[in-house]
């Protein structure tokens, strides 16, 4: 489903990703954990072209691009990729000038060309699924953070993506709201959606993810099933990270 090969990202002389190789199978939930500044978010943003990179290749659902791909072709490929891979942001990024319902129907109508009634029916179903059927006409700023993030997830689901990238989806939320959002995500995982989740929520990584990738200093330090990563980490850096998280 997603194949990343030797990805390198630099800001000037600062190397943020130093050759990341990683693959995700269809239906797999991959959690990426690691200390701040280890390149987790940057890595995720390279996958749908919000960031450019300076080395390596990415293949998503048969769409392949790399540094050598000419700009015009890359634009077309990225547009297709974004049509198939959704993204959920740490700061929700809902459209503040649209209602909850409009946030979810916006892209299906204007990108997929869906009939507005059809789009609305789909949006109502998805908002019901994330538990917001009663806030359809609210404006985003009148929702709690947890509610906003659930709208954001519904917004992505409305595009019927093959995979969703979650960029620290619960970092801006308090524990109760975090639980609401993680419950929705766990629900999606059970449905077999392919997900890459950059997260600090270790319990989620342990209970929901199939694979955990530990990032450190722009590299993948260690990958494996959660049981192995959390119970018997091979690497000293992983152990350090986990002990820090538990202390906090």
């Amino acid at each position: 489903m997603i194949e990343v090969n030797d990805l390198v990202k630099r800001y000037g002389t600062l190397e943020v990703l130093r050759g990341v190789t990683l693959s995700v199978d269809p239906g797999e939930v991959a959690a990426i954990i690691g200390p701040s500044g280890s390149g987790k978010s940057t890595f995720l943003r390279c996958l749908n072209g919000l960031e450019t990179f300076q080395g390596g290749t990415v293949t998503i659902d048969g769409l392949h691009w790399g540094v050598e791909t000419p700009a015009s072709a890359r634009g077309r490929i990225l547009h297709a990729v974004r049509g198939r891979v959704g993204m959920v942001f740490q700061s929700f990024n809902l459209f503040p000038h649209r209602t909850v319902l409009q946030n979810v129907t916006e892209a299906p109508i204007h990108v997929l060309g869906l009939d507005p009634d059809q789009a609305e029916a789909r949006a109502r179903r998805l908002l019901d699924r994330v538990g917001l059927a009663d806030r359809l006409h609210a404006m985003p700023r009148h929702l709690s953070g947890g509610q906003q993030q659930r709208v954001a997830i519904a917004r992505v689901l409305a595009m019927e993506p093959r995979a969703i990238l979650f960029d620290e989806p619960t970092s801006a939320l308090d524990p109760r709201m975090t639980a609401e959002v993680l419950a929705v995500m766990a629900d999606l995982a059970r449905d077999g959606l392919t997900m890459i989740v950059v997260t600090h929520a270790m319990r989620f990584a342990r209970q929901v993810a199939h694979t955990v990738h530990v990032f450190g200093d722009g590299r993948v330090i260690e990958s494996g099933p959660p049981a192995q990563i959390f119970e018997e980490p091979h690497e000293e850096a992983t152990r350090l990270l986990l002990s820090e998280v538990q202390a906090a």
Partner: protein
Amino acid sequence: MEETADASGGPHPLARIPRLLSLPVPRDPRLTLVALSFIACCLLEPRPSRADTLAEIRARGRLIYGGDMEGGGPYVYPDPNDPREVAGFEVELMDALGRELGVKAEFSQGPWDRLLEVLRAGRIDLVINGYEWTEARARDFLATRPYYTYQLQLMARRDGPIGSWHDLGASKPGGGSWRVGVLNSSAADTFADESGGPHVEVVRFDGGTDAMRAVENGQIDATLQDLPTVLFYRGRYPTLKLAGPPVGKGDYVIYVRRGDEPLRDALDRGLGRLIDSGELRWIYERHGLWNDAQRALSDGTGAKSQASRMPRPEGLELLWRYRSRLLAAAWVTIVLSVTSMPLAMALGLLIALGRMYGPRPLRRLLAAYVELLRGTPLMLQLFVLFYLLKLPVWVAGIGGLAINYSAYEAEIYRAGLQAIPAGQMEAALALGMSRQLALRRVIVPQAVRIVIPPVTNDFIALFKDTSVCSVITLVELTKQYSILGNSTGGWLEFALATSLLYLAMSLPLSWFSRWSERRWEASGAKGGAPA
């Protein structure tokens, strides 16, 4: 001494006016403004001049006379031999009169059609600038005996159909009316207005040479001007001819404030001596201005003898009489602003988007566009569009305002667009939107909300900037105020009426702005209370 106390701190002296008059200060600052302008108007009310201007002039040794040297030949114009000095037959006349009074005559520059206001405000001692004797002026000011008898001369294109003033009595071939340019509020203005007949449309200019250029450009058919001006400038406009013999006739006089009889009498005596000694004739001959019409000057009576003391209408009666003119001018102001502002807003948005998201060369080009238009005066831009590019007057007016304001709107939009968090564009792109679609559906609608207040602010500013369009002959409200003030002397009444009209037109704009801001708010609250 109280002034020094003020200067040392405390509120601005103006701020104290309402309190001094124990007026309630209205919440809307513009209402305060109205109150202040009302007070200012009251201060402008003709007041008895200070004890004795003549004694004051003698004491300071200088006699200050007002004129306008812009397009002012042969009356008063920058001296070609020494541009720091002024030259002209009126300058020589004033030098001679100064000698008669035993003081030095000193020129003071002012806009021609406002010289009497400058005089009334006490900034100058007298006005001498081809000002003819008129009944309206003689009511509010004192006039000396005539110092020159002028005639009016029509100028038209050599290859044109107009041979004389008489030709304008017939309808124009091909329909429409003859457009005849005049100097605003001059004798030619009155003459063309009253004697022009049904086929003549009077177009008013701020300078005589502007009107000549407009004839050359084909923007108007002919121009009627005082003969001295025509003789002085005709060489510069070789495609123009003197069309027929001079028409009309009147006297140039010097105006002083009412109550300054001693000064007026001293000037009269001085003029008499200059006429009797032949010195005045000698000045006119040197300028090629002497003709038989001047022989009547020695009578010392001229048109002044006809002075009538008919009271002029005042207050509401005056306003009522000229209501159609005021309202027509207000309409011009409205049309100018409501057509140019939407254009400026649309153009500004395109420029802002181009500057932020366009290719690099376009960004540079648009940045230069913005700087050029913000960095040069609107008046100059209007001049270029109308006199150099020869655009039709409404195109030049609306286009000029729209282009000028588009630069300001572009900067406002740019600020508004930059205020939208980067996450919005990212979220839109991540949902598969193209950059264009994201701008249209996500970014611009949010930016518009942010820019409503500053854009409305600019709308109100543009609305008042329409007055600059008078330089390209559009008679909008401010121009009409000046025209009516000049022709009737009712400055106070028209100042008040004009301010009120401006206010009546700009207040709805503010209300609209507040309403639309509230509307956005309301649409945001529709979903109910926060969770």
